[in-house]
């Protein structure tokens, strides 16, 4: 066991000497630990909006078919989906709510 601890110690020293650990820390950018980069962030935001719209519209459409109120719940679902999309994008940029 002692031998292994010594190994970990030397490994850490060697990594520090070559600046490997610091690079790993910088790479884990973004509040949530997801890879950063403006292009990736933009794509993520777009996908969040589109998927919230899909979820809202699908929910409205299914409820419409069930209740026979064709266009109304679908339109409501579209509005809710848009709102949820904006909420998703806000959550993307807002700091994560931590462990209370």
């Amino acid at each position: 066991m002692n031998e292994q601890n010594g190994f970990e110690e030397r490994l850490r020293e060697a990594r520090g000497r070559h600046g490997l650990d610091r690079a790993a820390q910088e790479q884990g950018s973004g509040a949530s630990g997801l890879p950063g980069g403006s292009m990736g962030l933009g794509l993520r935001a777009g996908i969040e909006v589109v998927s919230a719209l899909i979820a809202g519209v699908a929910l409205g459409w299914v409820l419409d078919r069930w209740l026979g109120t064709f266009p109304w719940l679908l339109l409501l679902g579209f509005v809710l989906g848009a709102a949820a999309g904006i909420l998703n994008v806000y959550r993307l940029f807002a700091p994560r709510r931590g462990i209370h």
Partner: protein
Amino acid sequence: MAAEGSSIDALGQFELVPVFGRIGASVGFTQSSAHMLLVVGLITLLLMAGIGARAVIPGRLQALTESLYEFIQDMVVSQVGEEGKRYFPFVFTLFMFILFGNLIGLFPFAFTFTSHIAVTFALAAIVFVLITVVALRLHGLKFFGYFFPEGAPLWLAPIIIPVEIVSYLSRPVSLSIRLFANMVAGHVMLQVFASFIVMLGGLGLIGKIVAVGPLALNVVLIGFEILVGFLQAYVFAILTSIYLHDAVHLH
């Protein structure tokens, strides 16, 4: 297959074809299912061979297996916390399946099953059902308080609750679309530039010289696709852990 005549068939590569003759056709066993089985076999082989030696100083295979294992374990523990270890096998399985699916699709004649929304949505739906069941089992009916943040004025409830529900339902959709769109986009680009090579190659000497351009681009794209394949498997796994964190702690 790539460029018949002068048209570019960029989407033909995603067509499902039954394999294994008549038996495969009658049960709908496509090349997609075959590649899934292949991937499962490859992962099993890698892990079995990797941990077979159990050396203190790991060989190459063991080092690869151990670093994959520790990579996901560190991620799950840092995102979910100590109690997240219970969900590590699930996240590890998902990660390996998607990673191998993305990477195996880059080989010639291979098929990328992660480029089908049916596959990615099925994976995302499993995650969605799991996080909902975990939240319900750990917190019971308090889970529904998740849809109404504490401290918000009560008269806003008719607006906040539907929006939060739609936002919650959009999780599997965004999870599946992200993976599917990335894989489709990459393979369509590869196909389009590969078609350019063939089409330019048919235009005599000058065409053959110009065709070096798309060929070089495709070499770069393959490297980029390896990165994207790894990154998307990572993103899928880390988003699963973030959702698990929400389910376990329920803020």
